[in-house]
């Protein structure tokens, strides 16, 4: 992971600040940095979103393709995650440098979406056991400034919200075979219900407290962090301890509680914002330099 070197004096400064609920950039312990979301930014995708959180920037593109359902779940489609840590984000990712982090991030995403309610997979089925929609979720890290998980999950949620899957009809031809027909109307699309898509909240344990949305400097001061993915109802779909340190049980309980509260609070404005953007209709695109 992209890291920064922090001197002992800086560490003490950050630690003492957090002890008094005051972080270097003036936030409280449970505040996020300024977040910007824009959906539908890449025209070649079925759904896309760009999220910037502080100086972290993530671009998510979703492509829907027709595939074969998995034999374990013949009447469900599935999601594939791939996280690309490009050398744009930091030169450390050059060549195969980002591969490990990319694997780690995508493995976590599989865990986060490994439940029945996040995305209605049955809706992605076209014909049982034969055809289904496969959603390829490709995440591109454009800039790294800490808290990749949270930015990534918000971007995925926004991208899933904007995903338009073309409607298809199954018709039987004369020989008894099945044919997939694509609707002629390009606006005849299926939308996904993203109400239950969870958002990830990363909590970094710094000193005796924990902070939300840690910057790289704060992350360097923390020994361990807990990532919690929370749905709008407050259900936890994935918890994971990251980093080389350990946590005492009491602080885990505190952190999950904070994670749930912060996560629930994150969903409301996010959904409102996405709906607002949708209602704007054709708007002027801000793009990447906005």
């Amino acid at each position, binding site marked *: 992971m992209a890291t920064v070197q922090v001197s002992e004096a800086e560490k003490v400064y950050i630690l003492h600040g957090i002890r008094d609920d005051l972080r270097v950039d003036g936030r409280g312990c449970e505040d996020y940095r300024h977040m910007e979301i824009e959906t539908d930014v890449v025209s070649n995708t079925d759904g896309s979103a760009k999220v910037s959180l502080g100086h972290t920037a993530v671009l998510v593109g979703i492509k829907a393709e027709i595939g074969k359902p998995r*034999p*374990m779940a013949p009447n469900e489609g599935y999601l594939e995650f791939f996280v690309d840590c490009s050398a744009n984000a930091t030169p450390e990712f050059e060549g195969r440098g980002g591969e490990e982090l990319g*694997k*780690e991030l*995508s*493995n976590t995403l599989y*865990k*986060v979406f*490994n*439940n*029945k*309610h996040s995305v209605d997979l049955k809706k992605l089925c076209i014909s049982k056991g034969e055809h289904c929609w496969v959603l390829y979720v490709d995440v591109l890290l454009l800039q790294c400034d800490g808290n990749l998980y949270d930015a990534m999950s918000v971007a995925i949620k926004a991208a899933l919200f904007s995903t338009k899957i073309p409607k298809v009809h199954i018709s039987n031809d004369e020989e008894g075979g099945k044919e997939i027909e694509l609707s002629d109307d390009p606006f005849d699309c299926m939308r996904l219900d993203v109400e239950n898509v969870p958002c990830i909240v990363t909590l970094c344990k710094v000193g005796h407290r924990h902070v939300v949305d840690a910057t790289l400097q704060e992350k360097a001061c923390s020994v*361990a962090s*807990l990532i919690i993915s929370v*749905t709008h109802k*407050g*259900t*936890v*779909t*994935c*918890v*994971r*301890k*990251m*980093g*080389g*340190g*350990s*946590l*005492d*049980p009491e602080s*885990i*309980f505190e952190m*999950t*509680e904070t994670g*749930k509260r912060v996560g629930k609070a994150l969903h409301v404005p996010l959904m409102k914002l996405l709906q607002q953007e949708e209602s704007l209709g054709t708007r002027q695109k801000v793009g990447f330099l906005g």
Partner: protein
Amino acid sequence: MPVDTRRVRGPEVSQSPLLFACKPAAVFSSHGPRADGRQRDQVDVRPVFVRCGLVSQAKGSAYMEAGDTKLMCCVYGPRETERKDDTDMKCGRLTTDMRFAPFSCPERGSWIQGSQDKDFSLMLHESLQPALCLHKYPRSQIEVNVMVLENSGSVLAHAVTCASLALADAGIEMYDLVLGCAIRQDGASYVVDPTYAEENGNGSDSSDNQGRLTLAFLPSLNQVSGLQSDGEMTEESLSAGVRTCIEGCYKIYPVIQQALAKAVRRAAPPPSES
């Protein structure tokens, strides 16, 4: 390449016939006693069998059995690091590798390490690292290799326990042993140390509050070094699950202590006090 056109060629990928077979009705029922007679909603871990020092080539090794879950772990090192960067100068590096034997699961796996195995290796790494005194091993690396021989559920939890035992057997300085425990939440009830069927079964119809949780715990320091969950759980059942897992870890603690003591005693008689 010449191809025999008269021969019917099979599909490129094959699936296990087990997937298409009619599954027995009660793979994992959400009420009543468990298939192996253990109690649900209680900290009822499977009895474990552990032994140290079965691989003489390795610096330390351990074998562990819990029900039908069987795994072994070898520790090599400390040896000179191959890959060098700045962080190695002050403290040692821990490398973990967890693999499943192809025949360990109901479906045959591949010898090539999949992304799931890598994820397990990473979790193992994060669970073990807080317990090791890595600052005592500058410029060197310690290798931990876990091989799962038979997967009958809760593999990661047992792998953590087995690996910490092997590390202690290797004489690597550690702050504490690391113990692992897993639970499967199923609606309002839960099962501790689930078997493969319990872990992957669909559970009750309500399908709410279904989740799996694995925890790594340092018993003497009372610290959690690894935590992972998936599925869906309420925050309350998650916290309760963490507590249950901690309790489960304490249950196997004496077994691990005894196995280690036995290994020490077998390695050498007590040194004469001088």
